[in-house]
């Protein structure tokens, strides 16, 4: 079973993601911030990580940098979910090694399709 890790500080979005992914067959884990997320990722070695950028304790970019710094995690693709659609911020995501970008608000089908895209390959 493919494993997916989500990092999101907003409880409502966490709940939404949890609910949306229930209908899929993936093993979904959700962390509340980057630090929790990094622990989960190191432990689970997921196929893909979806992360918010603005989070307390450790934000999405710091998480991505930390993953790139670890040889065992560097290969795992990370997709940023951001509320900002401004070009500079989207570009910054890719500078931090993002494999993709998902703009908030997103539809559930969009979310599921993006997850599936990374799990097929």
């Amino acid at each position, binding site marked *: 079973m493919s494993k997916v890790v989500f990092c999101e500080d907003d409880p409502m979005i966490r709940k939404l993601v949890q609910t949306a992914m229930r209908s899929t067959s993936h093993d979904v884990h959700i962390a509340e911030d980057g630090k929790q997320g990094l622990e989960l990722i190191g432990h689970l070695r997921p196929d893909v990580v979806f992360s918010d950028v603005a989070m307390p304790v450790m934000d999405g970019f710091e998480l991505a940098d930390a993953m790139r710094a670890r040889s065992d995690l560097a290969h795992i693709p990370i997709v940023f979910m951001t509320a*900002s659609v401004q070009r500079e911020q989207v570009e910054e995501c890719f500078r931090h090694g993002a494999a993709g970008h998902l703009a908030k608000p997103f539809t559930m089908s969009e979310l599921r399709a993006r997850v599936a895209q990374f799990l097929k390959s």
Partner: protein
Amino acid sequence: MRKLPRSLRFYVAASTLYAAVVFFAVQFIYTIQLTQSGILVAERDSGDVLSSIQIVSFIVWLGISLIAAAVMHRLATELAGAKSAEEEAKIAGEQKEQELGSIFGLSAAVAGPLDLEQIGGYFVAAIRGALPTDMTLALIVYDDVLEAFRTVAADGPRAATLQGKSYSTVALPAVVRTRVIDHRQSLLLADDQAHADMWKKIVEELPALATATSFAALPLVSRERLVGALLLIGEGIDDLIADKVQLPMIMGQYVAGSIHSALSVKEAEARAEREALVNRIAQRARASLDPEEILRGTVDELAKVLDVSRALVCTGATEDDLAVTYEWDATGVAPVGIGAKHVPIARLAARLGRTVIVTDVRKDRRFTDPRAAEDVIQQDVIAAAATPIRVGGQLAGALSFSQVDRSREWTADDVRLIEAVAQELRVAITAAEAFERQRAAVAELERLNRAKSDFVSIVSHEFRTPLTGIQGFSEMMAGEDLTLEEMREYAGDINKDAHRLNRMITEMLDLDKMESGRMQLHREPLDLNAIVSDAVDHMRPNAPRHAVSVRLDPLVGEMNGDRDKLTQVMANLLSNAVKYSPNGGEIVVSTRAERGAAHVVVRDHGMGIPKASLEAIFERYGRVESLATRHIQGTGLGLPIVRQIVQLHGGTVWAESSVGEGSVFHVRLPRGAALISAAAEAAS
């Protein structure tokens, strides 16, 4: 005894000889004839008679001869006298003719050219012949532009040392200054007993004269104006006697007129040149709106024309505010630096309200007086000139020029130029002020524009989060098979996010209202302590990691205010205290009664606020954006709202903080003032 002419001596000798010959001849003839006639008397008797006759006749002859000699001598003397007078008259006539000729020659020569050097050359050549060859003569001309005498022509053994030299009036010997320049009288001095004292003095002042024996300075005056002087330096005794300088003096007065005309032309040219320069500067000052460019065009040009080492434009409304805003330095001159405040000469000009000139700071009492040590001019400056710049009667700055390499006699023309340019600089300074205002306005607009786009990005970010929830849950409710229970739950979630969104919008609108003065306070008597403790109670569930303690001063008591708005103030301050101390820690909320005011303090032990941002955080969208705060949610409107509400209550809010240790927010609400204004409101 008078010597007799040779011809007369010869004549007297000849006539005496003749008388003797005649005498002996007569005696011989008498003797023969008397003997022949037999009347020869006795030797003794006849001898006596004869002797008497002979003596008498001899004396008679001698007398006649002497008388004739005397008459002849008188005649000869008269003749000789008449002859020499005639000759003398002839010689004198020739000399006069020569002098007149040279005057006419000179007048013809100087009628044409107006160049000072040429006039000088003709003049010197014209009088050269009338003076001993070993005498040095020089024509010095008073140059109004230089304010000094300048040698325009010289001739004689000392000509080389005089040629092309300038002498400022103060550098001339005192006797020349008083006698020649002030009183316009001729000065004739010789190294003799009659003038011994004066000669000694003049040699002291002009050591070059030590080897000379006489010196003359003859003023050249034309139409009441001293245009120059003729200097004569003699090397031999009796070189300079009044007779000899007569011709140079007459001719000097003649050339004075020409020199005057030449000087007038030169002055008119110089004046025209100056006017052209001022006009050029004025045009430049008006052609540009960029004050920097105006200063570059005017001050630089003037500095070069004046040949100074440094030019400074200081601006400031008072003498003490004057600071360098523009600087030009000649090559190799160390700059004073933009913003430098201590330019003593500029300060002096500003204080006196007029142009100030310093010829040599080392000799100027205003700058050497140790009591004025505070006002010591820049170390390197030797001479300086400064003039105040006034705009609409108010001091706006000062323009100063300085010389670091030498002392300098600032001429009246220099001063006029500096003053004229200072006038033109008013335009530049006025423009600079307008430009600065414009620039500040543009900067403010840019800042607002940036703040606006920042706000749009923040708000869109903040709005998108609740929108994601609303959109996602509603999508699921519409498209998936859900139980009624799930439906209810998701509908509740949608509602929560909708409220969140609404709160954000309300905050924005409230701040807008307050900032534009459309917000009305609903004042009522209230207990501030109660509001504070209610707000803390509301906040506690959201701060499980924080230890919140409350210390309320019962003396705070009742005051007048808007309950909802003051609750919002406390809610915002408390929510910030929690948000910006993500690692928990103690939060202390306290109230304190002060004279006529209630003081509320909220202290956290969070990340703190950089000193530079302590003011900006109260500005709209003035949130401190950093790595540490990037993840903290907020519209950046909480503190601006707090400030607006507190100000509407007549109070003040401020923050103290040190990064890494936490922040303290103070709110001070006047109780009396609030009550009074409430009473006034009620009364109206």
